[in-house]
């Protein structure tokens, strides 16, 4: 007889015995069921978060850092100051490039507008995009990959006051936005984008990817760059040569604060930090859920160990008798393994239903996607392994009991 047949043979009477003294088994099965529901849903949420966190922003995250520039002195020459600052930054050894922008991917603050691919478009023909108002060094500083057309030229760049119109703007779109606006192939270069005021904006290039500033935005990769940067609420971004960022950041802070007293440099942060802060809640949720999973696995595992140990104690006489009747040590171990497997399987069946129930509740109550059914079989396998591993030690102890227990009173 092979092992599988042996296992199958054991199942019948064990199952019948289980249905007779069921309280303990039912409790463990219920525990397994809830555990399965928690684990599958938690892992699903974790996966969802990890997937979102893994989406590339398009930015050279490791080497970029940024700061906001806040001019406050009246009659301050903002434009001249920005140009001077950027010149100084670009001249620093270790700086690859520096640029002025209103916002950038993952910042969690910025602006968006609706644009259309033709003049005089109707409401639905407008599609929103994150609006990046930048200079000619931005693509290089962020490390974005140009896949069609060209970068902005210096002569296309204007500095713009916040409440004013664009001045001869040209645009660079992300591939995703280009494909949306100019289907099917997204050949946007040479075409024109129209904003709500019917300003025609020639498109000069397409970049592979640049996320919008807000990670929860529906169309995360619909972004457009315009060749007018902003004079207020501006930010400098700097791209350091690999390995130079941490050395450069304090140096830049010192340089800028000493060079000009009419404006303040605030919240200097590496893109790595910004990413970590932006995804902080996702990461926190993932970590908490992992801890919950670990704890619940420990609890349920120990519960199985505890109950199995008690069963071994309570069944000493029975085990001795089985040994006397010819059970080998392996048969005794197998008995407990099969028993545990049956209990966890019962739990898994209830748990599968419970998992979907929990998912259903969460989908209806919250903004969560429904549970992918693949998580159930994986969770069930895990539960089986947990049940078998947890019962192994008590089962081995049971198999070590002396056959003579059958005749000695215990």
């Amino acid at each position, binding site marked *: 007889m092979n092992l599988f047949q042996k296992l199958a043979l054991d199942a019948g009477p064990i199952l*019948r*015995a289980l249905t007779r003294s069921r309280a303990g088994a039912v409790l463990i099965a219920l525990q397994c069921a809830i555990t399965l529901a928690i684990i599958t849903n938690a892992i699903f949420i974790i996966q969802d978060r990890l997937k979102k966190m893994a989406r590339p922003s398009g930015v050279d995250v490791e080497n970029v850092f940024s700061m906001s520039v806040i001019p406050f002195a009246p009659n301050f020459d903002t434009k001249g100051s920005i140009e001077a600052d950027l010149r100084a930054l670009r001249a620093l050894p270790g700086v690859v490039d520096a640029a002025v922008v209103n916002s950038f991917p993952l910042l969690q603050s910025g602006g968006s507008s609706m644009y259309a691919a033709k003049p005089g478009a109707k409401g639905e023909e407008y599609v929103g995009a994150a609006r990046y108002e930048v200079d000619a060094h931005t693509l290089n500083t962020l490390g974005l990959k140009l896949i069609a057309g060209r970068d902005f030229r210096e002569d296309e760049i204007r500095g713009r006051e916040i409440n004013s119109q664009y001045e001869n703007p040209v645009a660079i779109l992300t591939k995703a936005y280009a494909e949306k606006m100019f289907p099917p192939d997204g050949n946007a270069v040479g075409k024109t984008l129209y904003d709500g005021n019917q300003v025609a904006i020639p498109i000069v290039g397409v970049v592979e990817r640049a996320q919008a500033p807000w990670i929860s935005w529906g169309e995360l990769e619909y972004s457009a760059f315009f060749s007018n940067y902003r004079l207020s609420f501006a930010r400098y971004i700097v791209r350091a040569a690999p390995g130079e960022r941490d050395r450069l950041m304090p140096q830049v802070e010192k340089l800028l604060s000493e060079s000009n007293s009419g404006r303040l440099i605030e919240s200097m942060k590496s893109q790595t930090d910004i990413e970590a802060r932006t995804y902080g809640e996702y990461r926190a949720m993932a970590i908490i859920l992992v801890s919950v999973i670990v704890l619940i696995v420990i609890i349920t595992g120990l519960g199985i160990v505890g109950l199995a140990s008690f069963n071994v104690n309570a069944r000493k006489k029975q085990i001795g008798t*089985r040994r006397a*009747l*010819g059970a*080998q*040590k392996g048969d005794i171990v197998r008995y407990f393994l099969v028993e545990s497997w049956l209990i966890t399987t019962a739990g898994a069946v209830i748990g599968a239903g419970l998992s979907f129930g929990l998912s259903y509740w969460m989908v209806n109550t919250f903004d969560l996607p429904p549970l992918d059914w693949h998580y159930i079989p994986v969770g069930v396998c895990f539960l089986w392994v947990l049940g078998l591993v947890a019962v192994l030690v008590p089962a081995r102890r049971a198999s070590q009991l002396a*056959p003579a227990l*059958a*005749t000695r009173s215990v």
Partner: protein
Amino acid sequence: MLQMTHISKVFRTDLVQTHALRDFSLNVKEGEFVAVTGPSGSGKTTFLNIAGLLETFDTGTYLLDGKDVSHLSDDSRSRLRNEKIGFIFQGFNLIPDLSVFDNVDVPLRYRGFDGKERRRRIEGALEQVGLASRAKHLPSQLSGGQQQRVAIARALAGTPRILFADEPTGNLDSLMARQVLEMLEEINSSGTTIVMVTHDPELARRAHRNIHVMDGQVSDFTDFSQASAARDALAA
């Protein structure tokens, strides 16, 4: 069938050493019905456990069915118990969560018989002890005598060569005890060797031979086989 020579067994605990058996020698022939008597603590159960391969011994030799069993592995001892030996216990030792049918089934599963064979044997054995109609009952739904008959059926179902019984009637009233004994005699008459521990001299007298154990040693033989033959002859 069973040949023990100079067997000794010592139990060691932290405080004391108990010589449960010392220089214990005994021969049981095939087809014999032997009763073992002796005061409490004299080593009867120890002898039975060793004979039934439930316990190992310290010195001496033991041939079971002509084979030396002193150095067998745990698994081979299990297999021998399963195939050649049947047990009947004072406390019946039925598994409370299993039905009568499943209880009798226990050793047969370890033997690896297929389902049909097991069913045939279980039904046969239950028939033999007169409990065929109780197959679906739980042990707790049976009287003591019935439970012990189930235990006998369980021992018989594997068609053992030798049957060990430790005080099989100890938990039964005298009427049920006699029924059980009659059943054992019947089994013996079909060729199965029986070794029975008892403290009831009346029951012991019905065996072929009585072995009196005292302080872990055989102290006395009484052979009833001739006497009963003579009695049979007189009756005739």
